[in-house]
């Protein structure tokens, strides 16, 4: 009898140990996957925050630019910079033949003319002098400098020619190649050229979409939740509504995209590819999330608080607005932020309403065409150029950073403003 008991006890202990082991290994697995994922993203993406510049001496010759000695600001704007830009590239190798000159020109981004122009506009006294100017290297040389480019491939399989590599190596030796923080990644819109592509348009697109989504989903969801929780009678009809709100939360997001396409674009003729339409579509997705969070936090307000207010002679409306709703706000807000974070990462519905279009302007309002961060990742991931590989990872990092900040904010709201009741 006693021995049996001991056996049983040992069995109970070992089963608990087994369970703990399984639980721990599950957590370990989850953390491992996360670590691999983050390591992969960071190791491919961190180079995108650096950009390679060639330091090229430019001769700001007034005559070549058709400028007189004392040009006005307008004159400087209108001057012809192409010739001096081209010339400064050709000067890297005085003996280059025509084909090689063409290759020299392709060593920098096609933006080089504008960079040289900006240099002179910033400092008009350079006119007639020669100065070293930082010029964005082409995306392929950028990759070469970062060590991401397979130099040992046969030349006909490379986009960088042997001649370009030779000149580039000479420049590196002379210290004329520099890597600096890639500010243009954050300030430039999308571009077909990897070295000039930035997230400004998609970042603003995401911000505008989220704001539109918040402006629509939050008031509608909170009003719906308050009415359902505090005022609506509990009957079959309200049960039916509740079930359907939960169903709405489970609808695949691409369906909302089709809805946006069919209703907002086709019927209401709203402008395509705009954060306005994107935000409205996303708000349909966010709505049930906020309703559910808001109802849950209204339910969590102890009934004793409602009774206290009612017994003081407060009307139902006063009880709700003075006591229940303020107490439920921390939960509602953190639910809202989590809903918005989901919307922020949503790609499929935005592709359907046309936010996948190539946008090379920075949107100034929700009515301007824009992309969004996840869609930008999708667009770049489709691009063939090697320069976009790191951009994809960098964009993912920005998106993840954005999401982490939002979730952190949700946590802070929850912990800081949650009232404790006895």
């Amino acid at each position, binding site marked *: 009898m006693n021995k049996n008991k001991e056996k049983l006890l040992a069995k109970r202990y070992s089963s608990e140990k087994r369970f703990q082991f399984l639980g721990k290994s599950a957590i370990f697995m989850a953390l491992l996957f996360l670590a691999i994922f983050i390591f992969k993203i960071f190791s491919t993406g961190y180079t995108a925050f650096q950009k390679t510049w060639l330091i090229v001496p430019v001769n700001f010759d007034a005559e070549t630019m058709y400028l007189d000695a004392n040009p006005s600001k307008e004159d400087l704007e209108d001057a012809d910079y192409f010739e001096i830009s081209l010339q400064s590239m050709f000067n890297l190798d005085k003996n280059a033949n025509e084909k090689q000159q063409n290759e020299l020109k392709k060593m920098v981004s096609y933006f080089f003319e504008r960079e040289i122009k900006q240099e002179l506009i910033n400092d008009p006294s350079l006119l007639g002098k020669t100065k070293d100017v930082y010029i964005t290297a082409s995306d392929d040389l950028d990759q070469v400098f970062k060590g991401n480019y397979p130099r040992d491939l046969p030349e006909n399989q490379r986009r960088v020619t042997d001649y370009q590599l030779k000149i580039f190596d000479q420049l590196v030796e002379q210290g004329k190649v520099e890597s600096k923080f890639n500010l243009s990644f954050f300030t430039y819109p999308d571009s077909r050229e990897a070295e000039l592509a930035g997230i400004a348009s998609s970042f603003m697109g995401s911000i505008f979409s989220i704001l539109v989504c918040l402006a629509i989903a939050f008031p509608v969801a909170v009003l719906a939740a308050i009415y359902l929780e505090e005022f609506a009678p*509990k009957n079959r009809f309200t049960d039916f509504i509740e079930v359907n709100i939960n169903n709405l939360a489970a609808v695949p997001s691409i369906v909302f995209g089709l809805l946006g396409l069919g209703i907002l674009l086709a019927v209401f003729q709203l402008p395509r590819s705009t954060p306005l339409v994107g935000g409205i579509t996303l708000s349909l997705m966010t709505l049930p999330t906020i309703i559910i969070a808001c109802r849950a936090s209204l339910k969590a307000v102890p009934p*004793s*608080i409602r009774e*206290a207010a009612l*017994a*003081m002679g407060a009307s139902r409306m006063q009880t709700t607005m003075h006591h229940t709703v303020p107490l439920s706000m921390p939960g509602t807000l953190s639910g809202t932020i989590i809903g918005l974070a989901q919307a922020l990462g949503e790609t499929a519905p935005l592709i359907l309403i046309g936010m996948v279009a190539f946008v090379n302007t920075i949107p100034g309002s929700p009515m301007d065409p824009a992309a969004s961060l996840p869609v930008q990742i999708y667009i770049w991931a489709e691009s063939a150029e090697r320069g976009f590989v790191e951009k994809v990872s960098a964009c993912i990092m920005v998106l993840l950073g954005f999401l982490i900040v939002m979730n952190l904010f949700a946590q802070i709201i929850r912990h800081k403003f949650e*009232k404790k*009741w*006895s």
Partner: protein
Amino acid sequence: MKKNGVNMIKISAKNVDVFYGKKQALFNINLEIEENQVTALIGPSGCGKSTFLRCLNRMNDVIDICKVQGEIVINDFNINDKGCDVVRLREKIGMVFQKPNPFPKTLYENISYGPTIHGMAQSKQEMDEIVETSLKKAALWEEVKDRLHEPGTGLSGGQQQRLCIARAISVQPEVILMDEPCSALDPIATAQIEELIDELKKEHTIIIVTHSMAQAARVSQNTGFFHLGELIEHGSTDKIFKNPENNKTQDYITGRFG
């Protein structure tokens, strides 16, 4: 208030039946409550004494499935009439609950809430006075006067309950309903509340539901004994405790059941 040596009747319940869905919780209750007296409602758990108490300020309205029938007349007015405005009613009839339930706001806001929503103070000064007198009447002023703007939930259990009493009397109700106000408190806090009840009855009519027969004997002048949804016996506390007419009452107060 006495008229010819007899206490005035403040509340009279006539043929009150209460249903929770199909289940009947109270059967034909007839009870008269005297003004400026403390009336204790006693009885075993689930006997319907709290349900009856909640009929008096229509708090049962909150429960969807609860239906109240019969007449409850307060100041010559049947509160179960359709024309009765519950907001006005609850202004006149305050309530203190079993568990202290201060709002998670400051002490000051807890007291000023009722006067604010009923528009009782014209100025900040008047409100300050209401808060002070309410807290003084609830014997809490001395303990909290320096921290009126701290959260009410930071007080001890007994202090919280006195805060709830102060909140209830801030709108100068005629009647105060107390639903086992001491059940969550220690003996010292209980003694303080009982003393307070004795003081409050000068200005308010008090109805208290209690599980403790000793408490009923200490604080009340009248007692009603409920059992299984029926009012078995009611009368002066002296008579109920010393000389009950009904055997069940006798058994309950002597501790044979309940």
